[in-house]
Structure formats: structure tokens, C-alpha cells
């Protein structure tokens, strides 16, 4: 059937589809605002049970900061713990394993009961150009989706490496779709004094992080929705 103006059904059908599309988009937008609004508010009910926690590790300094935070978090509340590091980074998972093994020894349990360790493709290597990182980010997204479907964490802790962006984006998507409600906490690295990192900026601007912490007061003044928590190192 060609698109003649003598076909009233076709135009009606298309306007119905159009209205449905508009309606669906409006619903999605409302849902996104709902997620952003309630995500950034503290939970009103007491957390009765431990929460499954995803910890995104980065290279070198990032990992040291994250492990510092983990050392003061109550392990019985944040359990089980899933560690993810870039596939090119063996050191970070090794350090996390050391921490978990010593915890397991203390409590007389197996590490495999409380913690799991995984690797993920990196969205951008240090020094890689921003243009090629579009492609590598896509691959990382697919891999992140697979991992997130397996883990479905209630809490995500991350502090800087680009690896956390796909994971947080998927967590946000899961929230919008109602698959899993997770709280995303982002701690900006102490190395960022005057400007947020690319990861931090994305999570801040797109409002994907429920709480974004910074370690320098001048950074909090520049990004007022961030929370200043002092130095972790």
C-alpha cells in the first residue's frame, strides 16, 4: 500500500503509534527522574540485612584509597563483596585478595564465601585518545552488562577508574527498569584537587552517583552537590 492521502487508517495508525511512543518516552523520563530523586535520598527504612556490595578497583593509588575505605567499613554489613578490576591490572585484585584472606582467617571462614574477584575490559587505558575510547567503551559496556546481571549488587563503591562508568550506567539502567535498586557511592580520588575526573564528572552531571564524595574542600565548592569528607589517605 503506498502512502496516498486517501488512506485514513494508515495516518490514524501512525498517529496512534506516535502517541504511544510519546507516552512511553514520558513514562521513561518520569521513571528516570524518580530514580534520580529517590536515589540521592537516604533510605528511610533501617537496613535489616547485609547488602551485597560491588567494589570497583582501579590501578595504584585508586586501589590504596579504596582499601583504606574498606578497612573501616563493617564487613558483616557489606557482604558478600564482589571486586572488579581492569583485565590489565593484576595488582589490585591481588591486594584485595590479601585483605579478604586476612579477614577470612580472622573469622574462620573461606574467602570464597564472602568475596569474589572478577576482571573487566577497560574502557580507556591511560594515554588512549578519547576518540578510540568510544569503541573500547562499547566493548566494556557489553562485558559490564554480563557481569552486572550476574552480580546485581545493592551497593556500588567506586573511586575513579573509567572501569566504573559502564558498571554504574548499567546499575542506573537496572534501577530505571526496576530490575535492581542499588546505591551508587563514588569517592573522588585524592589526586583530584581542583577538578573532578572524567568519571566523577560524568557521574555528577548525569546524576548517576547517589552520593559523590570529594576529599578537598575547594572541589566541593565547585561541585555543590558533592559531599566533602576530608582526606582518605
Amino acid at each position, binding site marked *: 500500500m503506498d502512502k496516498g492521502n486517501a488512506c485514513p487508517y494508515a495516518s490514524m495508525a501512525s498517529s496512534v503509534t506516535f502517541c504511544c511512543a510519546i507516552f512511553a518516552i514520558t513514562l521513561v523520563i518520569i521513571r528516570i527522574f524518580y530514580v534520580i530523586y529517590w536515589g540521592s535520598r537516604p533510605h528511610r527504612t533501617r537496613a535489616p540485612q547485609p547488602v551485597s556490595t560491588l567494589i570497583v578497583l582501579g590501578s595504584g593509588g585508586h586501589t590504596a584509597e579504596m582499601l583504606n575505605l574498606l578497612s573501616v567499613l563493617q564487613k558483616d554489613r557489606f557482604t558478600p563483596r564482589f571486586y572488579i578490576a581492569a583485565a590489565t591490572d593484576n595488582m589490585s585484585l591481588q591486594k584485595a585478595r590479601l585483605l579478604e584472606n586476612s579477614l577470612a582467617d580472622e573469622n574462620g571462614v573461606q574467602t570464597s564465601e564472602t568475596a569474589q574477584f572478577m576482571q573487566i575490559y577497560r574502557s580507556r587505558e591511560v594515554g588512549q585518545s578519547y576518540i578510540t575510547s568510544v569503541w573500547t567503551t562499547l566493548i566494556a559496556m557489553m562485558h559490564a552488562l554480563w557481569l552486572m546481571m550476574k552480580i546485581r549488587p545493592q551497593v556500588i563503591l567506586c573511586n575513579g577508574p573509567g572501569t566504573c562508568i559502564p558498571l554504574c550506567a548499567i546499575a542506573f539502567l537496572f534501577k530505571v527498569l526496576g530490575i535492581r535498586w542499588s546505591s551508587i557511592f563514588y569517592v573522588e580520588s585524592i589526586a*583530584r584537587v581542583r577538578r573532578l575526573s572524567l568519571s566523577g564528572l560524568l557521574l555528577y552531571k548525569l546524576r548517576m552517583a547517589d552520593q559523590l564524595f570529594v576529599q578537598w574542600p575547594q572541589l566541593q565548592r565547585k561541585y555543590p552537590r558533592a559531599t566533602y569528607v576530608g582526606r582518605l589517605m
Partner: protein
Amino acid sequence: MGDDGDSTECRRVVFVTVGTTCFDALVRAVDSQTIKKELFTKGYTHLVIQMGRGSYIPTKSTGENGSLDVHYFTFSSSIADHLRSASLVISHAGSGSIFETLRLSKPLIVVVNEDLMDNHQSELAEELAENKHLYCSRPQTLDRTIADMDLKSLLPYSPGDATPVAKIINRFLGFLDD
């Protein structure tokens, strides 16, 4: 600060570290005659260079007839030992190296690598230099920094604390404070 070499027969080591990076400009700078001479006149006896992935090979020296003992390696699992035995640390701007050195209260010169694309690393070094915890320099100005530095004016760094963040996260999730 910096005069702890007396116990080990006046062995005063300058430890240069680039971490896992490639930072030839720094290795070349500390290998220059001007800087080696400057360090020697300041009373340092040994120069140990951890050169990482760099390709520039410094010249070894046994430190005879009034010069520095120079020695280098690429990587080591005992960086902490090297830091501990050093009287002065010259480091790249990675936060891991910076805080590890500060925690050992060793005098530190951070040299910023200007060849990095996203050069945010200078932020941290400059901020800590402003607070007088370390000196911040560039490969081409390192000789001046060493000549002008006064290690006694450096202030000790008190380590940070992660409990405030942990508290906020707990409260956010509805866990009661203990």
C-alpha cells in the same frame, strides 16, 4: 628530617622512583652532572634510580673519587624498603608513591611528568607543596629545586581518615551507628 644517615656510616641515599610509568625525562635529569654534583655537595652519597618502563639507561658509578654512587633497576617488589632507607625521595606524581613516602615522613620532591595527556597529577603535588609537605618540581627545574630546598621547612603529613565516609554511607543505607 633528612639527617638520619648517621647510624649507617653517613650513607645518605637519594631514591628516585617513577613507579610503573615511563618517565625518561626524570631519569635523564637526575643522571645529569649538574644534579649529581648538587646532590653530592648537599651531602648525599648514593643515588638509587627505579626507572620503570623507561628506555633511558643512566650511567652506573661506584662513587669513587668524590662522586655519587649511582645504581639503578627497573622494578622491585621492595620499593617500601628503598623508601625506608632513603634520606631524600624524588618521585613521579602518582598518588601511591606520594603518600607512601609521606607516611614514612621522608623528605620528598615530586617531579611532574608534563608528557602525560590528562595531566591532573600536578594538582595533588602542587596542593601538597602549597601546604609545605613536599617540593613540587619539573624535570627541567629539578636542579634549582634541589639547590634551593630547605628540608627543615617541610611540615609532617598527618594521614587521612576514612571513617567519615564510612559513617555517611552507613547512615545513607539505614544502618544504625554503633
